[in-house]
């Protein structure tokens, strides 16, 4: 009976942890299989432990090239989308203007549209214009779908900002530019950073829209897709594991830093 009661009380926790396990299981598999030495071309079955792939992460033809293309596109798309999106977010929160409803739906729709629809329609545009598919068409597409996410992230932050802080700055004879650079921007920064981080992740990992508009350019997700047909090198898992570890480390350090700051303030 005691056990049943315990189970009843912790049912949510147990169910939640099972879900967490479901979410993390593939990452565990990816990590474990980065130490595999597969027999055939595919890395789906465990054979024996080996460090080969970790010793030669770029040992597969074209993989690291595709990785660098992906990183460059993600960096440029992040810069583009963050600048354009932040401007829109400020306009939406700070100003009254006509056609606000139309602007809002133009921001919302890309997020509510299946990727394959955006991908296909953008391809019809590029085909009609006779554009050369490749690096630039991918970049254009990525800025387009990252924009809305930046707007949402920045908007949330700017909306929760106390307008009296800026009034105070102006009362203290700060010029509009000074007010913006030394008060508004630092307060909006976490929202902008969140938007930029999201853009980077979305762009780096995008497959569907890239698949349609890449021409013969191969990004990292495109490389993985191709290898699912031709044979999956273990190095893919090495990259996947590294990305996961770097992301977790980055988030953890930023948390530790912000914790320390909060303690200092308190």
């Amino acid at each position, binding site marked *: 009976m005691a056990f049943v009661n315990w189970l009843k009380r912790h049912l*949510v926790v147990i*169910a*939640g*942890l*099972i*879900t*967490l396990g*479901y*979410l*993390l299981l*593939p*990452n565990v*598999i*990816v990590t474990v*299989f980065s130490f595999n030495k597969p027999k055939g071309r595919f890395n*789906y079955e465990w054979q024996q432990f080996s460090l080969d792939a970790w010793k030669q992460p770029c040992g597969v033809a074209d993989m690291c090239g595709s990785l660098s293309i992906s990183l460059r596109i993600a960096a440029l798309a992040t810069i583009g989308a963050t600048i354009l999106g932040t*401007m*829109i977010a400020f*306009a939406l929160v700070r*100003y009254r*203007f006509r056609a606000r409803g139309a*602007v809002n739906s133009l*921001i*919302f*729709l890309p997020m*509510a*549209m*299946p*990727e*394959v*629809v*955006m991908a*296909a*329609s*953008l391809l*019809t*545009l590029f085909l*009609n214009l006779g554009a050369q598919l490749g690096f630039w068409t991918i970049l254009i*597409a990525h800025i387009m779908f990252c924009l809305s996410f930046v707007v*949402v992230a920045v908007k949330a932050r700017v909306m929760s900002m106390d307008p009296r802080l800026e009034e105070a700055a102006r009362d203290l*004879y700060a*010029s*509009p530019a000074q007010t913006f650079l030394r008060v508004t921007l630092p307060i909006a920064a976490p929202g902008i950073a969140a938007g930029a981080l999201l853009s980077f992740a979305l762009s780096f990992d995008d*497959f*569907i829209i890239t*698949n*349609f508009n890449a021409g013969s350019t191969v990004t*990292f*997700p495109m490389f*993985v*897709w191709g290898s*699912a047909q031709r044979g999956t090198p273990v190095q*893919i*898992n090495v990259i*996947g*594991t590294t*990305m996961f570890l770097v*992301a*977790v480390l980055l988030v*953890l350090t930023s948390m530790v830093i912000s914790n320390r700051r909060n303690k200092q303030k308190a």
Partner: protein
Amino acid sequence: MAAVTEAPPLAPAPEKKPPRKRGRLVPYWLLLPGILWLIIFFALPMIYQASTSVQTGSLEEGYKVTWHFATYWNALSEYWPQFLRSVLYATAATVLCLLLGYPLAYLIAFRAGRWRNLIMILVIAPFFTSFLIRTLAWKTILADNGPVVHTLNSLHILDLTNWLGWTAGDRVLATPLAVVCGLTYNFLPFMILPLYTSLERIDGRLHEAAGDLYAKPFTTFRKVTFPLSMPGVVSGTLLTFIPAAGDYVNADLLGSTDTRMVGNVIQTQFLRILDYPTAAALSFILMAAILVMVTFYIRRSGTEDLV
């Protein structure tokens, strides 16, 4: 206080009002580049796509707008099974995401204590490994002679799923079950995050109040917690259903030719068969169907402020 003393004592007072015309144009200048980008690369393509869908012709001779609406009829009559499958798989994945995601969101919001941030990171971190790599990992997990299939088989669960038509024989891979499993996995964080956001806003004292009024834990959940988390449920289901309905990656990597969804058809028509009108028509139908469903769903659930 430092700012006050540092301010130049004789700084000229700022102009009372900036020149009116310039001030009024500021929002438009801020909007212009981003909105132009969205108009040219999001809205305009939709129009091009609509026009492509009513064209006839061939790759060699070029396409012309002939208002050939029969393309829509032909596409629907040929590919309705894939459309139906998309809706079914996406619905199944959305329901599973809700069932799996709710306990975890609840755990993070109310029960995690000092573990909250860590669990949050673990929910988001998989995002940073390419989702294609993670989807391929399901090939290993669900492998024919792997432990999962073995367990399901020995518990006779596979017999049940075979009977329901979700699996075939001794396999899970290349069946609807594998595709739904992959879809659920891929879009689960999109369910958990909005759920968590709306759960976290709930005032904990409401739970205490319900308890004080002799509500059992489950009654408290049914009458207090769940209704208050509705905004999260609505945006979570939308964020899961929409991408799942248009997905073709899971159906391609984990499924077979019998599990092709509408996304797979659009992809092959566009990139391999190069039948642009049919592909554009299919994509247009998918877009229209989803927009209608989303509008209807948002109206019904009464949550207008999703953005």
